[in-house]
């Protein structure tokens, strides 16, 4: 599935923004600042940060399935093949080198 306005495509390496701001945020703390890659473009969805405060959720934001090596997220993680996958909105992602 693809969204025509998507900034990233499957395979792109991305870094989750490290932001600490108030509001109804659906980007978990543990993944902020971490680098992974786009697995899938889920499509466009209403923005929970707006919905949470009574807004209409517009404009819709592109939502990605972003994958991370577990070893890149946690300081001590043994099994080298394991992955962590999080659904993250585009405005929380930046291109990674």
């Amino acid at each position, binding site marked *: 599935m693809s969204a025509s306005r998507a900034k990233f495509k499957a395979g792109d390496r991305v870094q989750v923004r490290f932001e600490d701001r108030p509001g109804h945020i*659906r*980007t*978990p703390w*543990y*993944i902020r600042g971490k680098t992974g890659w786009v697995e899938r473009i*889920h*499509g466009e*969805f209403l923005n*929970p940060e707006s919905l949470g405060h009574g807004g209409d959720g517009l404009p819709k934001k592109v*939502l990605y*399935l972003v*994958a991370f090596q*577990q070893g890149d*997220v*946690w300081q001590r*993680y043994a*099994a*080298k*093949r*394991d*992955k*962590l*996958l*999080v*659904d*993250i*909105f585009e405005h929380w992602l930046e291109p990674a080198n």
Partner: protein
Amino acid sequence: MSVDHSVDQPNDAHGHEHPKHELSAVARRVYAIRELLLEKGLLTEHDIRCQIEYQEARSPANGAKIVTRAWIDPAYKSRLIADPKAACLELGIDATSINEFVVLENTEKVRHMVVCTLCSCYPRPILGRPPDWYKSFNYRQRSVNDPRGVMREFGLVPPDDVEVRVHDSTADIRYLVLPLRPQGTEHLSVTELEKLVTRDSMIGVMDALPTVPK
């Protein structure tokens, strides 16, 4: 004429009934809230009853039907992975209220596990209510950084060369794990196969049962 909904009436909720004076300070407020919403016409008794019935109609048995069909019919499995909501409808299972539904296929080399660390998102339209443990703080905390430890508690120990993929469902996506069909089950009937598919195997903390439970 107003109906007093406070005293025990023919019960439209089929749960364990507590004497109301024993309820906690927070719990008892639900009855006051219900009464006020009904009085103000914001909800009707019918609205509430419909939700209770909707929820009661949903259970892991739905998921077991879907998984079993995918096991015995490779073409169905392809359709399920490509468009899970449509594939559910083929079996009379209504998943239309899920915004986006993704099926995660386990293989010999990959095991998936699903959590919602931020709250308790779960594919309720398919599987019904999540188990208490899925909503627990310990599961929400540990599943992302210690999935193998969690699986071990449920009796699943994937070898090191198996990739464990944990999905944190933080947004509109709801995930269902399609567990691996156990070896040596070619002779089993559909009903028997469905008994192998546990709720926990569709969350991913364990595999499907290897043999039909007695």
